[in-house]
């Protein structure tokens, strides 16, 4: 029982390693609080490369909801007919692309076809209700739905990457239906133009 306690106490060392970030992988400072490293038998390691990356390999600015508006029917629209970062909204528990978004997607597809070096990241999201990993699955299906439209318009697979955060990156912290509608989205983010 207490053996494990001591081991978990060593987590303190790892936290200490965070201060120096990922550069000193094998030289994390000894945890002075627990004293558990006193016998020198435990080697602490940093948390490796890519830790707490700002932008990552595929980096780029976060897409925000600056373009979001409502149409006459009250539907959210977050896409534009110009080339640039976009948001596509989805209905509750649905992952089909809305008709009104198709024209925006065509603009992006045309640009991607004309610029083979351009790349986009599709990030799928859901509202916070329900199970976290099920929401990841739902968000992935949404990203894949956008991906499929772009591919149908001729965009190469190498220009597209998708990720689903499920409900982990909410657009709105509120808990009204209007907040949830903002959450259910795929952001299209040009990581290379």
């Amino acid at each position, binding site marked *: *029982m*207490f*053996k*494990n*306690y*001591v*081991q*978990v106490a*060593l*987590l*303190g*060392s*790892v*936290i200490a*390693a*965070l201060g120096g970030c990922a550069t000193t992988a094998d030289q*994390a400072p000894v945890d002075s*609080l*627990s*004293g558990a490293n006193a016998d020198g038998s*435990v*080697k*602490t*390691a*940093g*948390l*490796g490369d*890519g*830790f*707490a*990356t*700002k932008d*990552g*390999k*595929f*980096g780029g600015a976060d897409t925000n909801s600056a373009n979001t508006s409502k149409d006459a029917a009250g539907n959210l629209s977050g896409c534009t007919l110009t080339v640039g970062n976009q948001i596509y909204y989805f209905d509750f528990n649905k992952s089909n692309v809305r008709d009104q978004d198709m024209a925006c997607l065509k603009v992006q597809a045309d640009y991607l076809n004309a610029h083979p070096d351009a790349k986009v*990241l599709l*990030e799928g999201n859901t509202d*916070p*209700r*329900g*199970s*976290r*990993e*099920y929401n*990841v*699955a*739902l968000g*992935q*299906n949404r990203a*894949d739905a956008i991906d499929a439209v772009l591919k149908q318009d001729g965009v190469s697979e190498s220009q597209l*990457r*998708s*990720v*689903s*955060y*499920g409900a*982990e*990156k909410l657009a709105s912290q509120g*808990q009204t239906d209007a907040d949830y509608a903002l959450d259910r989205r795929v952001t299209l983010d040009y990581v290379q133009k």
Partner: protein
Amino acid sequence: MFELNFKKIVVSALGCLMMIKAYAMDNGVNIVLTQGVDKALPIAVVPFAGQSNAGSNDVAAVIRADLSFSGQFSVLPSARLPSSPSIATDVNPAVWRSVSVDDVVVGSVTVLGEKVQVSFALVDVVKGSNSAVLVKQSYVINKSQLRPLAHHIADVIFQQLTGVQGIFSTRLAYVLTRPGSYQLQISDADGFNPRSILISNEPIMSPAWSPDGKQLAYVSFEGRKAQIVITTLSTGQRRIVSAAAGINGAPAWSPNGQQLALVLSKSGTPKIYLLTLATGTLKQLTRGDAIDTEPSFAADGQSLLFTSDRGGSPQIYRYDLSSAKISRMTFNGDYNARASFSKDGKKIVFLHRQNGQYNIAVQDLSSSNVLILTHSGRNDSPTLAPNGMMVLFGNEGGELGLVSTDGRVNLRVPGKNGKVQDPAWSPFLN
């Protein structure tokens, strides 16, 4: 294990264990508790001698809090303590019966140079004039171990009086979020002593303890891609075990710790796979166009539960590993997800939606009866305590909640410096 780290200088239960058990059953109170808590057991924990200003290392305070949060005990408030004995022989049963407690915990902490000696006794005051000392032990420890020792003593008391192994020395993993920041933290079972093992500006999800409690698997979105990572807790060493295109999610350890069930979307829709950790061999278990996610093994490793919308709405299914046969487990409610088996395999705990309300529920597999345990309507991510008596879960407001599996005890565990979510209760760590 314990002997390696503590010098037990006295280990004396008065009377053999068998006799104590028999006594406890004759008593007529404890046996009711083991069946499902009709009434919390009244107990008093006297402040330990030598600990007047112990702060967070106050052994009696830790024991008191542990027993209270278990829901199985009604702990006498400190202000109502009728006297302050520190050894068993000074416990006068009549005095304690007058405040309606059945058991009294007394003890002391004595400084021995660099170390401290902690002694405690659990005294039954129901048995007439001759108090029965149920347990009496003494330990010599480093000062820094006072709090873990207090949890251990609470486990000893819990086991003695309920017949069930206590969970006070276990740990919790969870994700703490603040705007733009995600931390994977591990704390003691009472939420004390939180330590971050990963801090990222991208989401972290689905922590899962290895069966031996030494490793944690989780999903990290660092670099804006999903990866399944295993961290060895003693060293902080990280290993990326899955980084396919799309989803790498919902890791679940097999009971022998050699395999990880997980979810990948590389073949289209999200499907369950089985990864053998030593070889990296990957086997696809489920197929088709539906979402399959949230695998969770039975204790015997022969089957796993998962969530699937193959029937139209998310429901719980069971996959038998030897026959590859899939059977549906849930039929009540239009959304059931994130299930896990009780240790004896007779029940499943899961997220259950009815009338738009998301609550935690438990289903008895022989009767198919569903007991809804929570009522806020915004819950998720249930995780069972290793003794099966409590379920920890998240709610939309960013707090954790705790409920007994019989639905009788319900507690809130607010996050101190942010939102806490996605909890995972460790296995027993001994």
